[in-house]
């Protein structure tokens, strides 16, 4: 058993989920089984492998050399290729439409239960 009840409760707390008591054991068993399966990743030797943090293929079919480079390209290299749009102000008058979707809005704010006690 990899996952304990305490693990489930700790993770639920981190994820802002309030689990019903009967859910805790169900999820414990299921997560335990899934993580046991995922444990097979430990079989592989990954020393020297760069983690693939993002997916930014840039090259068309045929340019295999390049595509090999970009799929393992990381951080700086990949983000250097990002197409940034011009720094120009574009009107975006959607505040009313956005607030209309809020469960509790008091224009121009979202209202939530009291956060600060004084």
């Amino acid at each position, binding site marked *: 058993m990899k996952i304990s009840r305490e693990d489930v409760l700790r*993770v639920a707390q981190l994820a802002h989920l309030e689990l019903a008591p009967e859910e805790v054991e169900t999820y414990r068993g299921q997560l335990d089984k899934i993580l046991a399966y*995922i444990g097979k990743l430990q079989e592989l030797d990954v020393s020297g492998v760069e983690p693939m943090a993002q*997916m930014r293929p840039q090259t068309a079919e045929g340019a295999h050399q390049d595509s090999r480079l970009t799929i393992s390209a990381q951080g700086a290299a990949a983000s250097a290729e990002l197409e940034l749009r011009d720094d120009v102000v574009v009107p975006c008058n959607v505040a009313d439409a956005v607030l209309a*979707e809020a469960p509790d809005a008091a224009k121009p704010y979202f209202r*939530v239960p009291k956060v600060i006690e004084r």
Partner: protein
Amino acid sequence: MTAAPTWDVGSVRDALLTKKTSARELAKDFYAQIERRNPELNAFLALCPERAYAQADRVDATVANGDVLGPLAGVPVAIKDVISTQGVRTTCGSKILANYTPPYDATAIERLENAGAVILGKTNCDEFAMGSSNENSAYGPVRNPMALDRVPGGSSGGSAAAVAAGLAVVALGTDTGGSIRQPGAYCGIPALMPTYGRVSRYGLIAFASSLDRIGPFATNISDASTVMSVIAGHDSKDSTSAAVGVPDYAAEIEKSLEGLRIGVPEDYFGAGLDLEVKAKVQAGIALLEKLGCKRVPLKMPHTDYAIATYYIVATAEASSNLARYDGVRYGSRVQGTTLMDMYRKTRERGFGPEVKRRIMLGTYALSSGYYDAYYLRAQKVRALIAQDFANAFEKVDAILTPTAPTPAFRLGEKTADPLQMYLADIYTVTGSLAGVPGISVPCGKTSAGLPIGMQIFASHFGESRILQLARAFEKAGGFSI
């Protein structure tokens, strides 16, 4: 069982140009069909007749004026309910967004309508696109129009069922680990996952941002190509969309296959593959050889690690993306005594069991003390899987595999065991992790009459290659091999 689809993009266009029907009449006919069939199939969650008829009238006016019609003029389209549509309820198949109406359109929606498409409504799906059977929808499962006791596949089950049942001519779905291709296979229609970055994700409600892609369902390859030409291309609103030119796919697909090298990875034909599926896919590959392709045996040694990798990467991203559903800005709220109490109650009541399971798995994988062992390791294995594809595409022009290990399973058959459900994506998640495009094309049926899908992968931005192979396969009768 089901009325076979009778319309395609070309026949709609001909009928409009020869005045055999109008876009409005056509939309009306499709709504009548939906009204008749949807109670049984549960493929649509919302219809938008006002929007559809307004668009149809614009198309009819274009015809009346003799102006040039867009490539999808008057074509009735269905949209998976994770893609934002301004003014049309968009639930993601979740209770937490039961009353959410997006204030803007996704870029793909804008492009479809600019091309003349008539959007009929929103289709059912697994909650937040998390599932392989459509049984995780808060609004009930979809039934497979080819076999009503079976699942349509997931997560884009409603879009696949709608097209297969003739309730829409084409549809958009989304694919994160197989959610376009697998339901395409289960419902017996072509279903394409484009290259990561090929189609803008702006307005696609996020599940796993490094994996999510929008793509088409159609009844033939020409229609899938037309939709791709419309929705593909760079979008300044999505910085991960690629600035790579969009070919006229429809013009590329009739090319000869002579001399193309097709790779067949033995790793996709091992234990767990249904024997009838295996036999049909092998017959499909033999047909492509007859059409001039050269078969190349391949090894893709990290295939067996793809599901484990996927369920770390995808759930980690999901746990982060779904943090936004907290009862503050949109969606439902459950009152609480404190802010934290409100967050936790809202999320507990708003999310279904599979979504909670994945949020917890992802949170666990990212949590302090486990990050290196799970998330970081999964990202490294992801690089190895991508390398398997890069190595393969040094030797071949396309890779041929089954789409799914079995045909459509029965409703309820796998709901008790999440891991068994995850394994339905064993052949599709690899391409998702590598970012390459893939299609599922129909490849005959089992003896019980259930559709089988064959998957074709190409290298990044190789949609033309995929569609060319799929078109030749279709023309040679491969769909009913």
